[in-house]
């Protein structure tokens, strides 16, 4: 029998036991966005990619931006949860599960945007049948598959103890199928010293592993751009730059989720201002690194004055001026300023800083992908403007919102099966405090 603190369970399990009307309404709103996205996708399958804003020149649009964005969130979730776990950071416990869930849910959603982008989906299996190890696309396919398996194992390891607690808690008022699910998924874990040791070792190994995988896998994604001889992409620092940017966005998302779940599930006692400040400081530090990489990348391109780089930078400061300023000035400086000054360090302001950081990072992805494709090496004359410039259509917007909705829905569904704060982690905290 797994013993657990009754108060802890009473505080963290009501959302598993009961589902409010508000929950259903919110879920159906997201579902509506998802359905609109599916309608858009059917239109795209029926009429072809002509219904998107992508053309001969700008062959990547919103879909690739979203793919990079979601994959970045996933890797950052892995990095954050892995680092917090390995370094036994005391305050991590109420938020580590959210970071773990960000990892897996984003990783499930991200690759779908690649499917939306591919013109000949019927040839998708060729990637597995005729792989070329020399191709960064093959590296990416291998990396994402490997990462997906690793993240699922890591997430599952972190859930086992909680499943065992929920299985053995007699007063838990849930549907019989949930009880059965807990019984199956807990693997009969009863919390013996031997079982604890096995689980602890496996979690430590996997935590270290997913940190390494997250860095490698997101670097591989960056190298898809870096190894391409395109203005703005062919950069040696794209690997680390992408990794830092990913952690920046993931930290922002973590703060937003902390705020949402704290408010909706009334977790004020567990997710405190201290957690917001700590993650906020982390966001500021990462913002500094991210700003440094951004400046370094554009400075070398601007100073080098290679013709195509100069054209690209001119474009960024003219056609994309407001987006560039938002992504690389406001998005980096404002979160830093908000969190750097103690008087601004309130939960709402830190959350606002996180929202700005997250949006800025998405825009940053946009201005990395699109302006470069609009700056071809060969001059194009006498062509229609929409062939060489990109403007997303409603279908791309709909599928983007559908992706965000699926992310929200999956988070909501998981929170109905297991507590959004790990009970076992919280108990461990109590044990450590008692030992102290």
């Amino acid at each position, binding site marked *: 029998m797994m013993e657990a603190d009754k108060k802890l369970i009473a505080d963290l399990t009501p959302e598993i036991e009961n589902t409010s009307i508000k929950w259903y309404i919110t879920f159906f709103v997201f579902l509506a966005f998802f359905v609109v996205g599916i309608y858009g996708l059917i239109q795209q399958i029926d009429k072809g990619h002509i219904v998107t804003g992508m053309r001969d020149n700008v062959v990547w649009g919103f879909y690739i931006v979203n793919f990079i964005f979601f994959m970045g969130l996933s890797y950052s979730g892995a990095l954050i949860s892995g680092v917090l776990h390995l370094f036994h950071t005391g305050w991590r416990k109420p938020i580590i599960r959210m970071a773990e869930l960000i990892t897996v849910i984003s990783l499930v959603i991200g690759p779908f945007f690649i499917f939306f982008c591919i013109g000949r989906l019927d040839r998708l299996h060729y990637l597995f049948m005729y792989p070329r190890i020399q191709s960064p696309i093959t590296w990416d396919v291998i990396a994402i598959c*490997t990462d997906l398996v690793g993240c699922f194992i890591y997430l599952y390891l972190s859930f086992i103890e909680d499943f065992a607690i929920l299985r053995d808690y007699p007063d838990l008022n849930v549907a019989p199928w949930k009880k059965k699910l807990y019984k199956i998924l807990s693997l009969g874990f009863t919390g*013996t010293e031997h079982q604890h040791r*096995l689980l602890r070792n*496996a979690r430590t190994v996997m935590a270290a*592993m997913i940190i390494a995988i997250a860095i490698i896998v997101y670097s591989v994604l960056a190298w898809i751009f870096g190894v391409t001889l395109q203005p703005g992409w062919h950069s040696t620092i794209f690997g680390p730059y992408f990794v830092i940017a990913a952690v920046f966005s993931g930290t922002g998302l973590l703060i937003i989720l902390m705020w949402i779940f704290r408010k909706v599930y009334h977790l004020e006692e567990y997710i405190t201002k201290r957690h917001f400040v700590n993650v906020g400081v982390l966001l500021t530090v990462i913002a500094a690194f991210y700003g440094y990489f951004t400046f370094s990348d554009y400075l070398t391109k601007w100073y080098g004055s290679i013709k195509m780089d100069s054209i690209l930078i001119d474009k960024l400061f003219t056609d994309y001026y407001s987006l560039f300023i938002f992504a690389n000035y406001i998005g980096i400086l404002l979160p830093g300023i908000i969190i750097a000054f103690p008087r601004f360090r309130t939960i709402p302001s830190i959350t606002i800083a996180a929202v700005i950081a997250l949006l800025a990072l998405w825009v940053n992805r946009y201005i990395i992908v699109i302006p470069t494709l609009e700056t071809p090496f060969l001059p194009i004359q006498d062509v229609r403007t929409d062939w060489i410039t990109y403007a997303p259509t409603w279908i791309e917007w709909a599928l983007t919102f559908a992706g965000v909705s699926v992310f929200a829905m999956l988070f909501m569904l998981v929170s109905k099966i297991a507590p959004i704060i790990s009970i076992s982690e919280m108990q461990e905290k109590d044990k450590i405090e008692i030992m102290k």
Partner: protein
Amino acid sequence: MMKKAIKISLILVGLILVLNIKAQDEQAVGSFKEVVLNMTLSEVDSIKTVTITATTTENGKEVPVAGETVSVFVPRMFSNFPIGDITLDDTGTGTIEFPSDLPGGKEGILTIVAAFIDNATYGNVEKREEIHWGLPTDYLPTSHRALWTTRAPYWMIYTLSVLLTGVWGHYFFAIISLIRIRIDAKRKAKAEYRI
């Protein structure tokens, strides 16, 4: 009564539309004269020649198509490679020399197309032939290991293998740990049952 009238009107409108489309199709087909294109490919003293003959039928008799232009080209991956235009003489015949240095894939096979393109009298008509007139080119020598061949450099294979073995080895360790937890739990349950 009203419903019947609407039904009849709809059927009539549908009928008119169908007949109209059919008439347009017939008109489109019937607006161009029929033409027969023949292509002869010959090689004398290493000089390759494409000879085109075009005939049409007038009053039940076969007559040559004179004075018209026929385009000759070779389809490539993205577009057509033009060889040249032939103006047909009074006998409906024309020739053009074919280059000897066109790459033609592994086997050296080229597809040669002669066509009337948007011709006012004959519309779009083409004749195509395949022949071993290209230079056999194999861009992917299998013996060579490089980024651009079908065989990857050894260092890439080694790096990928080491990385994947390392990562999946750790996954395997985690899965074995899970199996051991399950076995331990079963053993413990059995022992408790005996007691």
